[in-house]
């Protein structure tokens, strides 16, 4: 039922400006309700962060938007059309980069996979792969296998492969959760820079509240069992964000307090 008329947006913001829309989305897996009547818009160019305790359906939500799962009730739309299968300009970055990369292919070969899927002519691939690897700082490591790269480099490689899709929407599933603090900060800034440069909408799942505030235009807090939206916080912090300046900004500190208090108040 693509093109089906949707009700006016209930989650705030003009629906014409939304690139991804969820309307009363529910999902039951194995007899257990995972997601319960979620309604949410992601606007074009917006950076939405999602936080919540484990079991609140964060990852499932990403899979629904990516088209890897279909809701039992409600609709997920992308660019106004119902999502039935993965769209080729919606990219998904997994947390477990070691499992998401092809161990038998070099860094260049892994990026190439995205171009092969899109049937990009062979002659065009090499320069574009090189440009993408340069962009994420892996230009010197094109011929290395994933196992020869550090965790941060592997995650960069996965990002490069997703950028090869020329994504309008970047879905990220706790992408930096397994990385050390310094690498995490560097990659946070890189993702902000890349998203701003391309005008990409980002849907970013994390369990790190400060990370969510630092990156996001909005922070969606989920509640578990079954997963549903508890609250949405608007983050009105100036961009470009800065690891020191932003984190010391009075508004950041106020939001941080508000967010922590809110989540603590909802813990059972």
């Amino acid at each position, binding site marked *: 039922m693509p093109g089906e008329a949707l009700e006016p947006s209930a989650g705030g913001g003009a629906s014409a400006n939304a690139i991804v829309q969820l309307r009363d989305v529910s999902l039951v897996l194995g007899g257990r309700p995972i997601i319960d009547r979620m309604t949410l818009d992601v606007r074009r160019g917006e950076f939405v962060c999602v936080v919540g305790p484990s079991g609140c359906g964060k990852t499932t939500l990403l899979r629904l938007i*990516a088209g*890897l799962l279909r809701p039992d009730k409600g609709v997920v739309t992308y660019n106004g059309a119902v999502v039935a*299968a*993965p769209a*080729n300009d*919606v*990219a*998904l970055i*997994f947390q*477990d980069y070691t*499992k*998401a990369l*092809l*161990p*038998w292919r070099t860094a260049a070969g892994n990026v190439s*996979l*995205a171009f*092969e*899927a*899109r049937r990009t002519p062979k002659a065009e691939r090499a320069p574009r792969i090189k440009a993408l690897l340069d962009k994420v700082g892996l230009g010197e490591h094109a011929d290395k*296998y994933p*196992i*020869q*790269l*550090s*965790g941060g480099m592997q995650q960069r490689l996965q990002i490069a*492969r997703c950028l090869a*899709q020329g994504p309008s929407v970047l879905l990220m599933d706790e992408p930096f959760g397994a990385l050390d603090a310094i690498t995490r900060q560097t990659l946070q800034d890189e993702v902000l820079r890349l998203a701003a440069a391309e005008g990409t909408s980002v849907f970013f799942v994390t369990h790190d509240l400060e990370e969510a505030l630092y990156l996001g235009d909005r922070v969606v807090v989920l509640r578990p069992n079954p997963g549903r939206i508890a609250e949405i916080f608007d983050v009105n912090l100036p961009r470009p964000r800065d690891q020191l300046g932003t984190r010391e900004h009075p508004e950041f500190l106020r939001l941080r307090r508000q967010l922590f208090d809110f989540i603590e108040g909802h813990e059972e």
Partner: protein
Amino acid sequence: MKGWVVPVGVLLFAEISARLFGITSDSLASPSQILAAAWSFLSTGVLFARSAQTLLAAVSGLLIGGGLGLTLAVLLGLIPPLSRLLRFPIEALRPIPSIASLPIVLMIYGFGYRMEIAIIAFACFWPVLIIGQSAIVGIEPRLIEVSRVLGLNFFSRVTKIALPAALPRLFVAFRQAAAVSLVVAVTVEIVMNPQGLGYELMTAQNSLQPALMFAILIYIGLLGWSLNAVLLLAQKHLFAFAAVPRLNA
């Protein structure tokens, strides 16, 4: 080094006892007699023709049976409804000993290579199907999701994700089937097909030449061992990526 103690000891014991007690038998021979028989047989050149016959049948059967088994394994591994549909027929057919199919195959193809190859193919089909299917099912699910998100079509998903990801385990299936192929080839040749090493073995036995019989037996053993050694070597080279040293994890 220690691995050689028992075989060398057994050989010495056999040789010494044969010489001490002067055994003359229609079913036994001393190691030196076996060696002599092997040498004289080697010089006739028949051995190479027979080996070629056996290996040709084994390899053809392996390729046909293994190829069909692999194709079905990939389909069953990637399409769960098909796997559920075929689970019972497969479980019902699999226990049939391959050599029991001989009478039927004989009726279809008559004597000769086609019959032998068909039976070997039947025997090789099962290990490749069973191990192959579990190899495909065991692929990291994240890789399948990656292939879906990137929008790879079914064919690319098979060739670019499923087969390479499952390759190490598929190769194990292939090695298993290779061992089976030689066993079945020799068996069919002993029982029904007057060609190859199995037939030569029977000829030696029928003409009461135990030394030659043992020589061929040992040769077949060596052949199977080298086949496996070659495949193991290939395995090491094929999966070099898995052995690349980790820099700083």
